């Protein structure tokens, strides 16, 4: 079975003085998280869409989703964890509690604040996870990336043609991901905040799915303006 997992754990600190987490900011007159969950809710391949959010925002999230999504039977809102990976583990626990966790169970995990994800990206994630066990959505880097070990001088300027920017979704075989995550020490868990990185470090293959330049993460107030510009296409 395949589950959509929308990660809405962010508290929005980077949005300046925003009172609410950034996924509740609106673009085109609708909360960002609603746009994102709608995108997943219409994917018939998904058994359910699990939305994970801090406990205090669960009811509010459920309310605003129900206002816009006529059929909420496949959408559940549950509590996330303290870290991104713990949040992922909560989604896997939920699937297990439904009796649907087996070796082929796949989770398509996505940032709540990337509302411009397309059908193709989701569908290639499903195929990628089925075929390779895991995949990561990326886009070729446009800026030169500079590495500095001390923050004072340049240590390295890697070949840009081999560099990609990470986007989401990231998709995994859920059981395998949990097994590897649970095998990490507490120190490793604290450092390895990216699930794809965990798999790569443990020697697992992670397939690349090509993202889109417009599959942006809405992080800063400036991004809201960009998002509103992208969303100019009403007939």
């Amino acid at each position, binding site marked *: 079975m395949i589950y959509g997992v929308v990660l809405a754990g962010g508290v929005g600190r980077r949005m300046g003085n925003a009172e609410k987490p950034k996924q509740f900011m609106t673009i*085109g007159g*609708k909360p960002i998280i609603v*746009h994102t969950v*709608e*995108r997943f*809710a*219409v*994917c*018939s391949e998904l058994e359910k869409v699990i939305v994970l959010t801090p406990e205090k925002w669960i009811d509010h999230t459920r309310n605003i989703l129900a206002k*816009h*999504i*006529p*059929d909420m039977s496949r959408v559940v809102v549950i509590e996330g964890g303290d870290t991104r990976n713990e949040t992922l583990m909560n989604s896997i626990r939920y699937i297990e509690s439904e009796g649907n966790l087996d070796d082929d169970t796949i989770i398509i995990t996505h940032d709540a604040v990337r*509302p*411009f994800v*397309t*059908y*193709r990206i989701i569908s290639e994630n499903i195929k990628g996870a089925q075929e390779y066990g895991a995949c990561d959505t990326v886009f070729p880097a446009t800026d030169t990336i500079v590495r500095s070990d001390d923050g004072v001088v340049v240590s390295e300027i890697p070949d840009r043609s081999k560099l990609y920017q990470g986007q989401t979704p990231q998709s995994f075989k859920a059981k395998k991901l949990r097994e590897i995550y649970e095998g990490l020490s507490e120190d490793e868990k604290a450092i390895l905040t990216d699930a794809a990185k965990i798999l790569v470090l443990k020697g697992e293959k992670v397939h690349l799915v090509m993202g*889109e330049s*417009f599959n942006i993460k809405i992080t800063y107030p400036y991004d809201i303006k960009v998002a509103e510009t*992208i*969303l*100019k*296409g*009403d*007939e």
Partner: protein
Amino acid sequence: MLNAVYRLVEPRRFEVEFNDVELDDEHIIVRPTHLSICNADQRYYQGTRPAEVLAKKLPMALIHEGIGRVVYDSCGEFKPGQMVVMIPNTPFEHDDIVAENYLRSSRFRASGFDGFMQDNVAMRRDRVIALPEGAKPEVAAFIEFTSVSYHAVTRFMRFAHSRRRTIGIWGDGNLAFTVAIILRLRIPDAKLYIFGKHVDKLDNFSFAEETFHINQVPDELVVDHAFECVGSSGAPRAINQIIDHIAPEGTISILGVTEELAPLNTRMILEKGLHVFDSSRSGREDFEATVRMYEEHPEVIRYLDCLIDNVIDVREMSDFVTAFDSDMHKAGGKTIMLWNK
């Protein structure tokens, strides 16, 4: 739901924009799978429509011939995964006399509003028809095109007198081919004469009784009725040649699209008492009839399959240009885009 719409913003340049699609009971969300390029799309892509038309209509998503897979129907009438054909004509009123495709209030995809080059298309419930299982998707992709020919033949059967021994079809392209196939099926006793200027294309009409090069038509040749499937700058010459070779009280069905006014031999139209009527686009009934025809007559699908010139996998926006450029330079036939964008 946010939805990516790939619009032509100026000739040969596409850009992505997003609109917000409401997930309501009135609409079905369809993921396009196979899209077919029409000459009308080419006229926008190449910028051959008048400048004021382009200024008014662009930016706009192209393509009005296509099929797709249902991804969401809040009413459950269509199951997810069901293959459907999308009807581009969208009426907003009903008229007992005027067909939906002639109502001035109707809107048409990739003409009055966005066509099918979208991530998902929100189709009004009455603008979607289920495709039979096993339908060859590349042929089903241009059901709209076939339905226009079907519609024209239906009108012909309504308007034309009953002496239908010989029917002339002017044109040797896709439209002429499709009209001729449908005439063959629906009026099997009529002799079909095809008039064109490309010998290799005329050779494809193996099911017709005769083909003629337009410069070598015998003076004494007469047809009972005629279809003009030429369009563009060749249309006036074709229509006047029809007027010369048609029997009195015959019908001339005009299907070709031309941007210019056509000078016609109206004196001879009067003297022969001809009936001239036009056909354009099609409505839901024509689509349903065409789908039935596909189901009941597999030979039609085999003939139409021969029209497919090129099937192009479209994953990137640069592939749009590849597909349209390839279609532009083709000798004939249809270009199908496998929609993986």
